[in-house]
């Protein structure tokens, strides 16, 4: 399924954002406050753009009342206080769909199995570690059976193993994935294409090889980067100097 962000603007935050993702993994990177999350929030409808539109298979997301059947999102929201069990959380992914208890149960069980958290099914969600929680939230998104998955910094607070885990899971689903990532090397490893945001505007877009070049990194992030090729995967990876450029 194709997601298009078409000349989206939110006054004072982002301007003229145009990008798309079509059965691929597309990453949005950029410094803090560059408008990455704002852009994603327009995609999953937490914000309505002041100008432009987000289209899903050509239709404006704000006109799609059943959008949740096609699009699932992992937001940054993390102040949950209600103590649901893991299976209750995953079951919430079935909310957008017509009720069918037998099928719902099967989809939930499959989702738990896919992210390998079946053993946690009856545990309290709040008692889980950060990595486990993120896996459970991904299971919820899987239970939603989306064709588009939107991820806002899905690797936040995770150790390296769980970072790789979460992104492999997302990539392995075979759906359109639009994700904001902080870590440029993870972005290079897992994304087919990258977009770079700086001060609310898109400044680059293309394959990781095209985008992650020292000049751009210096201009946007104000650091000096050296590009090397990963010895086994062949994707570009960055090494950084200690000094920050002005």
């Amino acid at each position, binding site marked *: 399924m194709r997601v298009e962000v078409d000349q989206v603007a939110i006054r004072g935050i982002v301007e003229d954002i145009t990008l798309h993702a079509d059965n691929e993994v597309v990453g949005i990177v950029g410094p803090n406050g560059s408008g990455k999350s704002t852009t994603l929030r327009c995609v999953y409808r937490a914000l309505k753009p002041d100008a432009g539109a987000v289209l899903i298979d050509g239709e404006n997301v704000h006109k799609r009342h059943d959008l949740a059947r096609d699009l699932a999102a992992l937001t940054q929201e993390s102040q949950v206080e*209600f103590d649901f069990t893991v299976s209750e959380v995953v079951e919430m992914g079935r*909310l*957008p769909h017509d009720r069918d208890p037998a099928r719902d149960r099967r989809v939930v069980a499959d989702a738990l199995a896919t992210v390998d958290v079946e053993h946690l099914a009856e545990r309290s969600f*709040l008692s889980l570690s950060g990595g486990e929680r993120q896996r459970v939230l991904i299971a919820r998104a899987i239970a939603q059976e989306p064709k588009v998955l939107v991820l806002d910094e899905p690797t936040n607070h995770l150790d390296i193993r769980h970072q790789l885990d979460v992104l492999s899971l997302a990539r392995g689903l075979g759906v359109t994935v639009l994700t904001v990532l902080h870590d440029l090397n993870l972005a290079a490893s897992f994304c087919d294409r990258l977009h770079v945001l700086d001060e609310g505007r898109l400044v680059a877009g293309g394959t990781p090889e095209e985008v992650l070049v020292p000049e751009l990194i210096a201009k946007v992030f104000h650091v000096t980067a050296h590009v090397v090729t990963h010895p086994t995967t062949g994707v570009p990876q960055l090494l950084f100097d200690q000094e920050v450029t002005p």
Partner: protein
Amino acid sequence: MIGKISALVGVLAVSVVAGVSLGPVSVPFGLTLELLHAAVTGGTIPADLAGQYHIVWDIRLPRVLLAAVVGAGLSAVGVAIQAMVRNALADPYVLGISSGASVGATAVATLGVLQGLGVYALSTGAFLTGLGATALVYLTARTGGGLTPLRLVLTGTALAYGFSAVAMLLVFQAPHGEAARSAMFWLLGSLGGANWQSLPVATVVTAAGIVYLMSKARQLNALAMGDETATTLGVAVNRFRTHLFVVTAGITGVLVAVSGAVGFVGLMLPHLTRMVVGADHRRVLPLAPLAGASFLVWVDVAARMLAAPEELPLGVITAAIGVPCFIFLMRRRAYVFGGR
């Protein structure tokens, strides 16, 4: 789940009969059942039981049933409001409805407004100013982005102080102590005015409200996870919260009109229910009202009997039970919604 519901329905049935049987003039449990059976099936009773029949059928039963309705309604509203504003300390009165109602009730009791309505003056006055206050909270808290939980709680709390100040001023300006006393008694909750006429509206509104909330249990679950999450799960968050606001305010307004502001029920019962069955609203919403109904029936029994022939305000008893209960809850680990 079916087992828990049946058990609570059984407890409620026994509580209702016990509530009718117990009182300053005690009617034996067996005789109570007989009299109720006769009343429902249209059977005949001996003439010498007429006095007890009058106590059971005309005085106590409507009162006990109203206690059950108020307890059920406040518990259901408490569950919904805590999810709606995602705040563990929220109760049905957090949106200013009880303090708003107290303005109307004290105005009736001390200034004698609405006297044309006779015995209904107090509840009508309370209902009108209660809903007026809620409307004011709604309009003040509303922003372009809809009703956010924090704004709702802050606005409700801030305006509640204002309404309470007006009610207190009325009490202090009251020409004679009796008016102030009756206003105060009403503020702390009482079912003393219950009769068969006060029952239907409260029952219908409460039942319809609970059915609505139960039908939205899954949406409440999503809302409890956060506004953005609920949005991505397909819940139209702003519209849903507005609906919840109207439904909970409607139920609370009607209940406050018939029983005053009974505290703690709407705060405690949701938490107690979650401690037993977890946070899932598909389980909490049927169970909390059943538990709350039995709870308030017994609270009212205590209100009638502890200082007989005087009656105690319900709020005094719910506070006596609720405060220690709440402190226990707070001290028990880091309590969260549904922490087991």
